[in-house]
C-alpha cells in the first residue's frame, strides 16, 4: 500500500476500522457457510480486537494519526481556557511579530542582493583619510584614474552619493522627482536589460551629448500608465529638453538602498541637476561620487584591493611630491582605499542602520525568549492541575514519548497561532519602524517576503514551540506513576517553575537596563547645553531656479529677513551657510596671528558664514566684542587679494578657539588667515561654544565669517519667534515672500527642534523601542510571577491551613510566600546583572552621557523590577494569609 493511501487512512480512521471489521466478518460468514458453528468460528478466529489494532497500525501512518489525535486534544484543551489562549497568542504574537519585523528590515537593509547579474561580483570602493575617518566619496578625476589604471575589474561606475530632488515639467505638469546621477557605464556594469527601450550607455555620458533619461518602472506605471510610447517622449529639466530612452525592470530599485530614483541620468547632465559648472570633471576637490566595480571573473576581492591600493598610492606619491607643506603631505599620504561587498548596493544605508538593527534583533530575541519562558511556566503550572489525567494516561500504558509528544503538540498549536498573529503584528510594527527610520523623508525598503524571511519564520516557530513545550513535556515524561501516587507534593515541579521565573526576571532585568540606558541617552541629548536654543526657531530655504548669488536674490533675501523681523511675535531673523546639526559641514585650516604651531600641528577649525543677528536668533551669546552688522556687508566687493591687505574682512571665533590659540591674550583686533591665497580676517567678536556637526561631539573650535563676505551657495534662513513652536509664522512668511517676488517659494520648511531630532534618529529609535520592550518585559515577568506564586499558594493551601491552625499569624504566612518571591528575585537579578554587564558593552556606541556599567542604572532597573515583582506576588500571598484553616484542611 502506498504512503498516500496510508496517509489517507489516517484521515478516514473510522472507515479503515470498518473495512478491517468487514473482512473479519466475511471470514466468519465463510466459515458458517462451510457448515461450521458460528460461535466456534469466532472462537477460532481469536481476539478480533487485537487483530484489528495490529492491522490498523500496519495500514496507517501512526505518528500522523497520533499527531492528529494530539492536535484535536490540544485544541479542545486550549478552547476550554480562552483567557490563557488569548494571553499566550498575544505574547507569542508580539514576540514573533517583533522578531519578524526586525529581521525583515535586516534582510532589506543588509542581506538582500540587488536584482542584477552576478551581484556577488560587485564591490564598492571605500576611502579612508589621514584622520582615521572612512568614507567613500570620490572625485571624477580620481574615479577615472582608478577605472583606467586597474586590471582587476571588468568595469566600474560612479554615481552621485545621494539622489537629487529635481523639478521637471512633463506634458505641462510640474513635479518634483528623485534623480540618480550615474556615469555612462552604470547599466552595463550592473549587467541589466531594460523593461522597454534602452538603458544608459557610455555615449550618453560625454559632455555635450543629448540629454537623456531612463525612468524607473514605478514612475512609468505612476505617470505613464505603462504606455510603451514613453520611449522617445521628452520632459524639461531646467528648461532643457530631456528624452526618455528606456525603463528599468520592475524589481530594480537602484543602487542606493532606501531610495527609489524615478530618473536615472548620465553624469553629463550634472549641471542641470546640481547647478554650478562642469569643473568637477577636471578638479579633484569635488568629492560627490560613490564608486562601484565588478570584479573580473576569478579575481579575489583581497587581490583586487591590493592592486587598487598600489595604484592609488602611486597617485598620492605624485600629488605629495608637488607640495612642500609637511601637513599637506601628511594629509595626502594618509589616505587609503579599500573594497567592501556591494551585492546589496552601496553601503550608506547599512552603515547607518546595521548597528541599531542588530541590537534591536537581540532585544526582540530576548523578548521572545521571555514570552516563551512565561508560557512555559504557565503550562507547567497547568500541568500540575492535569496531574490526575496524566497519571491515568501513564497507568493505561501511554509511553513517555507519547506524553512528551502530546505536550509538544499543544505548544506547537500555540506557536503556530502566535506566528499567525505575529505576521499581522510584524507588518504593522515593520511599517512603523520604517516610518521612524525614514526620519521625515522617504525610505524605500523592499520588505516583500523572500525565502530568508520564510526560513526565519519557520525556524522561529519551531524554536518557540520547543522553548515553550520542552520543560513541561520533559516534566510530564518523567511522571512516575508510583512515585506520583505516593508523593503528591510535586517538589521538583515547583523547582522547575521557580527556575523559569528566575529566567524571566533575569531577562527582564537585561531589557530594563537596556531601556534605562537608551532612554537615559535620549534624555541627556535633549537636556545637554548645545550652545544654542532648540525651540522657537523656524528654518527654510528659498525654493527658486535662480542662482544662489545673483544680486536680485541677495536683495530678495535681505528684504525678506528684514520684513519678517518686523512681524509681531518674531524676535529676530538671520541666515547661515551651515545650519547646525543638519549634517552639513565646512572646515579648513587656519593660521592665527601670534600663535606658533608645534611641529606637525595643523590648525583645523569648523567654519560657518552667518548674517547679522545670527547669535541673537540661535541664542548663542556674544561673550566679547560684537556681532556682525551692516558695516561688514560692504567688503564682499573686495575681491582683490593681491592688493594691500583687504580691509573690512571680519570673523567671530568661539570660546574654545579663543582658549586654544590665544590663551589669556585678547583675540579682539587680531587676525587669522584662511585658505591658500590668504585672506586675512580681523577678529571682532567671541561667541559662546556651540555644537556643530552633532550633539554628541565635544564643542568644536569654530570660526564664523560674515555671510556677505564669504557666501558659498544658498544659505538657510532662520526666524526666531517668541513662542515655542514657530510654525504659526509660516503663512505670514509666505505672504511676505509672495509680495517681494511671486516666483519664489519657501523650501524645506521645518523647525530647528525637528532638525535636531533628526540628527539623533538612532538614539530616538533605540529609546522608543527599548522603553516599549522594557515595559513589555516588566508586564510579562509580573504575569509570570503572579501565575507561579498563585499556583504555589493553591498547592500549599493545606500546608497553610495546618500552619495557621497551629498558630501562625497571617503576616507570617504572607511573609512565607513573599520570601519565595524575594529568593527568586535575588537569584534572577544576580544572573541578569551579570549578563547585562556583558551585553551593554556592545551598545556603547549608541549611548551618550550614560555609562553602561553605572551602578545607578542597574539599581534603578532592579528597584523597578523588585517593586513590580512584589506587587505581582502580593495578591496571591494575601490570599494565602486569608485561608480559613477549617476550609483548608478539608481541601483536596
Amino acid at each position, binding site marked *: 500500500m502506498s504512503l498516500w493511501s496510508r496517509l489517507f487512512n489516517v484521515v478516514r480512521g473510522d472507515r479503515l476500522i470498518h473495512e478491517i471489521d468487514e473482512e*473479519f466478518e*466475511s471470514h466468519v460468514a465463510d466459515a458458517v457457510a462451510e457448515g461450521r458453528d458460528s460461535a466456534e468460528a469466532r472462537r477460532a*478466529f*481469536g481476539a478480533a480486537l487485537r487483530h484489528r489494532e*495490529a492491522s490498523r497500525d500496519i*495500514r496507517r501512518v501512526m505518528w500522523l494519526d497520533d499527531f492528529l489525535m494530539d492536535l484535536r486534544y490540544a485544541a479542545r484543551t486550549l478552547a476550554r481556557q480562552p483567557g490563557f489562549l488569548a494571553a499566550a497568542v498575544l505574547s507569542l504574537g508580539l514576540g514573533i511579530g517583533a522578531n519578524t519585523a526586525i529581521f525583515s528590515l535586516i534582510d532589506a537593509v543588509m542581506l538582500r542582493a540587488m536584482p542584477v547579474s552576478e551581484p556577488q561580483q560587485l564591490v564598492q570602493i571605500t576611502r579612508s583619510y589621514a584622520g582615521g575617518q572612512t568614507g567613500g566619496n570620490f572625485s571624477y578625476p580620481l574615479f577615472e584614474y582608478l577605472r583606467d589604471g586597474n586590471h582587476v575589474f571588468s568595469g566600474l561606475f560612479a554615481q552621485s552619493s545621494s539622489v537629487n530632488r529635481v523639478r521637471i515639467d512633463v506634458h505641462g505638469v510640474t513635479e518634483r522627482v528623485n534623480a540618480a546621477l550615474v556615469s555612462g557605464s552604470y547599466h552595463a556594469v550592473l549587467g541589466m536589460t531594460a523593461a522597454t527601450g534602452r538603458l544608459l550607455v557610455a555615449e550618453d555620458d560625454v559632455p555635450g551629448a543629448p540629454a537623456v533619461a531612463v525612468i524607473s518602472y514605478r514612475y512609468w506605471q505612476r505617470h505613464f500608465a505603462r504606455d510603451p510610447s514613453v520611449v522617445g517622449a521628452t520632459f524639461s529639466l531646467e528648461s532643457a529638453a530631456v528624452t526618455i530612452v528606456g525603463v528599468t525592470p520592475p524589481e530594480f530599485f537602484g543602487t542606493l538602498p532606501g531610495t527609489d530614483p524615478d530618473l536615472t541620468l548620465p553624469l553629463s547632465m550634472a549641471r542641470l541637476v546640481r547647478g554650478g559648472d562642469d569643473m568637477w570633471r577636471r578638479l579633484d576637490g569635488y568629492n560627490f561620487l560613490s564608486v562601484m566595480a565588478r570584479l573580473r571573473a576569478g579575481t579575489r576581492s583581497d587581490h583586487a584591493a591590493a592592486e587598487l591600493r598600489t595604484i592609488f598610492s602611486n597617485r598620492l606619491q605624485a600629488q605629495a611630491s608637488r607640495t612642500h607643506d609637511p601637513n599637506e603631505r601628511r594629509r595626502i599620504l594618509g589616505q587609503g582605499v579599500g573594497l567592501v561587498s556591494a551585492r546589496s548596493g552601496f553601503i550608506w544605508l547599512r552603515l547607518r542602520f546595521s548597528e541599531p538593527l542588530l541590537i534591536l534583533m537581540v532585544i526582540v530575541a530576548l523578548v521572545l525568549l521571555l514570552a516563551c519562558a512565561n508560557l512555559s511556566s504557565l503550562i507547567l503550572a497547568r500541568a500540575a492541575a492535569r496531574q490526575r489525567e496524566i497519571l491515568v494516561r501513564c497507568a493505561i500504558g501511554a509511553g513517555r514519548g507519547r506524553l512528551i509528544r502530546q505536550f509538544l503538540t499543544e505548544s506547537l498549536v500555540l506557536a503556530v497561532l502566535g506566528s499567525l498573529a505575529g505576521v499581522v503584528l510584524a507588518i504593522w510594527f515593520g511599517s512603523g519602524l520604517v516610518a521612524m527610520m525614514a526620519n521625515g523623508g522617504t525610505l524605500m525598503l523592499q520588505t516583500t517576503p523572500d525565502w530568508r524571511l520564510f526560513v526565519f519564520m519557520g525556524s522561529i516557530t519551531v524554536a518557540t514551540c520547543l522553548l515553550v513545550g520542552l520543560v513541561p513535556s520533559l516534566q510530564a515524561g518523567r511522571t512516575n506513576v508510583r512515585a506520583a501516587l505516593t508523593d503528591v507534593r510535586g517538589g521538583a515541579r515547583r523547582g522547575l517553575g521557580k527556575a523559569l521565573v528566575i529566567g524571566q526576571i533575569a531577562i527582564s532585568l537585561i531589557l530594563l537596563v537596556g531601556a534605562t540606558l537608551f532612554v537615559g541617552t535620549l534624555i541627556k541629548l535633549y537636556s545637554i547645553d548645545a550652545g544654542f536654543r532648540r525651540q522657537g526657531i523656524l528654518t527654510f530655504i528659498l525654493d527658486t531656479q535662480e542662482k544662489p548669488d545673483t544680486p536680485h536674490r541677495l536683495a530678495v533675501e535681505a528684504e525678506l529677513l528684514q520684513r519678517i523681523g518686523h512681524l509681531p511675535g518674531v524676535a529676530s531673523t538671520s541666515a547661515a551657510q551651515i545650519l547646525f546639526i543638519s549634517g552639513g559641514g565646512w572646515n579648513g585650516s587656519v593660521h592665527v596671528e601670534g600663535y606658533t604651531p608645534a611641529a606637525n600641528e595643523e590648525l583645523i577649525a569648523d567654519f560657518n558664514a552667518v548674517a547679522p543677528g545670527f547669535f541673537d536668533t540661535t541664542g548663542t551669546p556674544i561673550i566679547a566684542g560684537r556681532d556682525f552688522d551692516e558695516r561688514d556687508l560692504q567688503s564682499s566687493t573686495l575681491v582683490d587679494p593681491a592688493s594691500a591687505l583687504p580691509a573690512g574682512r571680519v570673523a567671530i571665533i568661539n570660546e574654545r578657539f579663543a582658549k586654544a590659540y590665544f590663551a589669556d591674550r585678547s583675540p579682539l583686533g587680531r587676525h587669522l588667515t584662511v585658505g591658500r591665497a590668504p585672506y586675512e580676517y580681523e577678529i571682532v567678536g567671541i561667541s559662546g561654544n556651540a555644537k556643530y556637526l552633532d550633539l554628541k561631539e565635544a564643542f568644536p573650535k569654530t570660526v564664523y565669517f560674515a555671510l556677505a563676505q564669504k557666501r558659498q551657495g544658498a544659505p538657510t534662513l532662520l526666524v526666531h519667534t517668541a513662542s515655542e513652536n514657530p510654525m504659526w509664522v509660516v503663512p505670514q512668511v509666505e505672504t511676505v515672500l509672495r509680495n517681494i517676488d511671486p516666483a519664489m517659494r519657501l523650501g524645506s520648511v521645518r523647525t530647528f527642534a525637528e532638525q535636531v531630532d533628526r540628527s539623533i534618529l538612532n538614539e530616538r529609535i533605540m529609546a522608543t523601542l527599548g522603553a516599549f520592550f522594557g515595559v513589555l518585559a516588566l508586564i510579562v515577568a509580573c504575569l509570570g510571577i503572579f501565575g507561579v506564586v498563585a499556583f504555589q499558594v493553591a498547592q500549599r493551601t493545606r500546608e497553610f491551613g495546618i500552619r495557621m491552625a497551629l498558630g501562625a499569624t497571617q503576616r507570617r504566612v504572607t511573609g512565607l510566600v513573599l520570601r519565595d518571591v524575594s529568593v527568586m528575585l535575588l537569584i534572577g537579578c544576580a544572573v541578569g546583572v551579570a549578563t547585562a554587564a556583558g551585553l551593554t558593552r556592545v551598545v556603547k556606541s549608541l549611548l551618550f552621557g550614560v555609562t553602561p556599567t553605572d551602578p545607578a542604572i542597574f539599581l534603578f532597573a532592579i528597584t523597578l523590577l523588585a517593586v513590580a515583582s512584589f506587587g505581582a506576588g502580593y495578591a496571591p500571598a494575601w490570599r494565602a494569609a486569608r485561608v480559613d484553616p477549617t476550609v483548608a484542611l478539608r481541601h483536596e
Partner: protein
Amino acid sequence: MSKPDSLQGSLDLLVLKILSSRPGLHGYALMTAIHAASRDVLHVEEGSLYPALHRMEEAGWIRAEWMTKDSGRRARAYELTAAGKKQLTAEESRWQAVTAAVNRVLRTV
C-alpha cells in the same frame, strides 16, 4: 505480532506460494487452501492471518481488491505483485536451504 507462532516465518512463504498459483483468493479460502495443501497438518490461527496479509500488502508483495461474492457479501481478494514473485523465490530458496541443513543434522547426528 511478536507472539511466537509455530507457523511464524513460514506463513509468508505459504501464502505467497498459494497466491502464485491461485490468484484472487480471499482470506478464508487462503486458510482452507493451506489446510488442504498441507493435508490438514498446518493450521493457521484464523485471526492472525489478517495482520500478516496486511503486513505483506504493506510491504508491496501482494495487493488486494474488494469483490462481491455470489452471496452478495463483499470479500477482499489477494494476488501477487511482481515484488511478491521475487520475494517468493527468495523465501523458497531460503526455506530449502534451512530444511536441507536441518535434515543433514538429523541424518548425521
